[in-house]
Each structure stands twice: as C-alpha cells, then as structure tokens.
C-alpha cells in the first residue's frame, strides 16, 4: 500500500507569515493525526480526526493553528501567524479505526521560522 504523503517536505518562513501543510493518508484509514515534533523531543499530538470529525484538539494552539479534513480524506494544517517556537517537524499519521491497528507516519514537513 502507498504510505502517508505529506507536502511540502521543507518550508522556511519569517515570523508572522502564514504556512500550510498538506497530508494524504493511506486509503481507507479513518483516523488521521497531526503531530508536532520539536528538535530533541518526542512527537506531541496537535489534533486527531476520525473521518472528518475532530476527536481531540486539546493541545492545538487554536489562536494560530487550524486544521481541517475535507470529506474525511486529505487534511490541511495551517499556522497563521507563525512564531519562532513553531519551528519543528510536523508529522501526519493515519490508521484504521481499530485500536489494535498500527499507525503509519508520513515523512514529515520540516518548518523553520526565522
């Protein structure tokens, strides 16, 4: 099966600019996650979708971050405006609904905010 696709792979922006990341999960995977991984740390969940509904967005900084999952397939994560501390790798992952299923991660988008 094809893996989780993400684009772009790298992005450099200045603070206060906006940026958007795109994710295409594995076909048939109902659950989609966005994680933020700051250098030297483990991934932190930003938002979790099941189909096109939000399951958990408790750690999403909603004043600047937004995410949507159109038609329960692709997803977009946006940051507006970006801050220096948003520099990180943004990982998209997907899985089947069953909790016993493994979770597949995409290659990530590396964001640098200057």
């Amino acid at each position, binding site marked *: 099966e094809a893996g989780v696709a993400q684009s772009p792979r790298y992005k450099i922006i200045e603070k206060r600019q906006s940026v958007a990341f795109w994710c295409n999960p594995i076909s048939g995977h109902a*659950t989609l*996650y966005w994680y933020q991984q700051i250098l030297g*740390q*483990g*991934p*932190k*969940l930003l938002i*979790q979708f*099941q189909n096109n509904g939000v*399951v*958990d967005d408790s750690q999403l900084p909603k004043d600047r971050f937004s995410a949507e999952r159109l038609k329960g397939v692709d997803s977009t994560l946006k940051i507006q405006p970006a801050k220096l501390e948003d520099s990180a790798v943004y*990982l998209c*992952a997907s*899985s089947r*609904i069953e*909790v*016993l299923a*493994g*979770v*597949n*991660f*995409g*290659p*990530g988008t590396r964001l640098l905010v200057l």
Partner: protein
Amino acid sequence: AQSVTQLDSHVSVSEGTPVLLRCNYSSSYSPSLFWYVQHPNKGLQLLLKYTSAATLVKGINGFEAEFKKSETSFHLTKPSAHMSDAAEYFCVVRTFGNEKLTFGTGTRLTIIP
C-alpha cells in the same frame, strides 16, 4: 489516562553487544504498545507492536519486546547491535476507547564501533 516513561534518554553499546531500551507504561485499560524508530532526518518507522496476543513480540531488524503486565513494562531488546541501529527510539501507548497515541520522550541509541 495513559502515559509512557522511557527510563534512559541515551544508551550507548558496542557493536555486536546486546541492546536494552527500557519502557514503562501507565494505562487505565488494556493497552496496545508500540516501538517506533526514527533515523536522523527520517520519518517514524514501526518496529513492532503488542496487541494482547503473545507477550513476546518480534519486530523488524532483529528487535523484540516483552509485555509484562505485572511490571507495566515493554522493554525493547536486540541480541547483537549493528551500526545501522543508531537512531532515536520511541515507546508508544494507545488505549481502547482513546485512539490517541502517547509517546515517550525517546531514547537515543549510539553504537560504538
């Protein structure tokens, strides 16, 4: 609530010697447990998973892990380290009814030639 504690932030072993990466978990219900590996500038790759079947789980690249409910542990082992094993390893827990993945802080494995 669920959580994961990786007991060592950094482990160094000589090539050809055994590897032990320690993980303890906390979960209100029967958990699923995973080990992921992340090589520098690469994505996360699933090494192995425990899903309430056999308590000794075999993964890729010669790694295995044993689920011990009494000790709430899921330690990762490999009999003989290879240079290509140098990477960051994450222990992850997922609980029925809450499909959220909770990551440990990671263990950086260094292999000494």
